[in-house]
């Protein structure tokens, strides 16, 4: 177990290091920040002073070494545009992203588990087919379009909820709903398929033959085991949501990490892009490792393999 964890941590750290390097090189291919940051009437000397102040006059590998050194001290640098420590800016935005991702996942789970179970126990009936068609639809709809249509229907036509911005729970409803549709659809399908598999196992037959009620067999014996694969996808979804809500955040003007990094990309704000992507990558890798650990606790068979 310890060795497995160490291996996972090592390969996770390696992936994060790879991402840091790719982002570092990629943002420097976007163009010279001096050209964007300095006023057009700036003299050559002034531009040179700017470049020197941020180290852009060094060769790229030296810049990378400097960045790594600062990173090792926990310093992500300062934003070029806002002249604020990148770490502070990220910490300001992180709660909004977490709030949105977690709410979206909770929405999806609340619906997906019962829908999946119902589809599985009524396999082959109208309810099963209807659930599966709706789930397939949920996996096929582009989230940004769904978001716009929800704004139009729920916000503009029916005036039920605020259509953008950050505030109380009411601001959270539309973006979280939009983001929850894909995980909802996928999790429903997985719950159904895992339930079908579990319901065919011998121990379920044993439970039934002991005379237990169908309710207890379904919810106590089958569902518990069927939820194991769900842990993996929920983890993957959370990891993806932490970095992937860029478009939905943009549509709803939600002040999260995704929008922060996209704006930073537009502004050629290298340190902010680097810091933002680093935090996203760490969350993704971290969540994945946690999921694996959780998995081996819930399902002891995995530890043996």
């Amino acid at each position: 177990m310890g060795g497995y964890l160490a291996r996972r941590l090592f390969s996770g750290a390696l992936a994060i290091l790879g991402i840091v390097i790719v982002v570092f090189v990629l943002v420097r291919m976007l163009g010279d920040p001096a050209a964007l940051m300095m006023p057009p009437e700036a003299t050559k000397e002034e531009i040179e002073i700017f470049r020197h102040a941020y180290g852009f006059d060094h060769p790229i590998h030296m810049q990378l070494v400097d960045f790594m050194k600062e990173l090792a001290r926990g310093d992500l640098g300062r934003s070029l545009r806002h002249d604020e420590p990148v770490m502070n800016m990220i910490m300001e935005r992180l709660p909004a992203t977490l709030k949105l991702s977690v709410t979206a996942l909770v929405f999806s789970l609340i619906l997906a588990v019962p829908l999946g179970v119902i589809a599985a126990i009524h396999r082959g009936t109208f309810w099963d087919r209807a659930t599966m068609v709706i789930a397939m639809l949920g996996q096929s709809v582009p989230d940004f379009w769904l978001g716009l249509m929800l704004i139009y229907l729920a916000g503009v036509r029916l005036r039920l909820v605020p259509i953008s911005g950050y505030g109380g729970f009411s601001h959270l409803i539309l973006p979280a709903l939009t983001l929850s549709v894909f995980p909802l659809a996928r999790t429903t399908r997985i719950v159904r398929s895992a339930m079908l598999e579990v319901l065919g196992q011998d121990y379920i037959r044993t439970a039934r033959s002991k005379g237990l009620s169908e309710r207890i067999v379904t919810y106590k014996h089958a569902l518990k085991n069927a939820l194991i694969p769900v842990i993996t996808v929920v983890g993957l979804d959370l990891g993806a949501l932490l970095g992937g809500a860029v478009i939905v955040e943009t549509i709803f003007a939600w002040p999260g990490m995704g929008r922060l990094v996209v704006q930073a990309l537009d502004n050629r704000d290298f340190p902010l892009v680097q810091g933002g992507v680093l935090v996203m990558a760490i969350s993704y890798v971290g969540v994945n490792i946690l999921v694996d650990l959780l998995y081996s606790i819930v399902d002891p068979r995995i530890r043996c393999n």
Partner: protein
Amino acid sequence: MNGGKTRAPIGAIVILACIAAVAVFAPWLAPENPEEIVLTRRLAPPFWMEGGSIAHALGTDSLGRDILSRLIFGSRVSLIVGLVAVAAGAGVGIALGLVTGYYGGVLDNVIMRIGDVQLAFPFILLAIALMAVLGEGLGNVILVLSIRSWVPYARMVRGQVLALKEQEFVQAVRAIGAKDWRITVKHILPNVAAPVIVLASFSVARTIIAEASLSFLGLGVGVSAATWGAMISQGKDYLTDAWWISGFPGLAIMITVLSINLIGDWLRDSLDPSLKY
């Protein structure tokens, strides 16, 4: 798992065939030039609404361009990008999977680690950054989207090769002196074809949505190009007065992707029952 539920999704196949035909024959089917700007007829509603006319069956956008014509031409971009990007990504992924699985060693380690990096990278951000570096254009969109898709193929093919290469039939051909490339291409590759086809069908669906997302953000084929994603973006400021500008292209994406997903589901059930989800 789905015990005999392998009935072909006729509806989805017919719809997808129609969309493909529309893409191929777009210039003959579109009632108008999709780029023609006529400001005097801007924001005309679809024909069944008050003020709409059958001349612009699905209405016009903020520049008076015919939505139906733009939808018809937009199908080309979605299908081309979806098919070519997936074919390129799958080709590279399959080749890398065969090589890493068969030979193992350092190369295997390096390539699989690169795959880990890519999976942990928030894809939409990588795509945005790459498109900003490369610039707009059909070729660049295809390139960026195919970069994303090789990893799952490489992983899956590698796994299959690892399992297959110890099997007796592979040992047997090796014993009679077959070369490595012949063993992999002729004897191992056909055995991984089914899961690859299934995976590819789902990736075409995902890639079409990804292309639309990039176009929506203004990082696609071109800002004024008639693509479904760009059309949704052009309509987003007119939601209150003219929902149809964004509404129809989104429906088109959903119907196309849904058909592909249904076909993918059917392929999975009938080709490879061991794959779930």
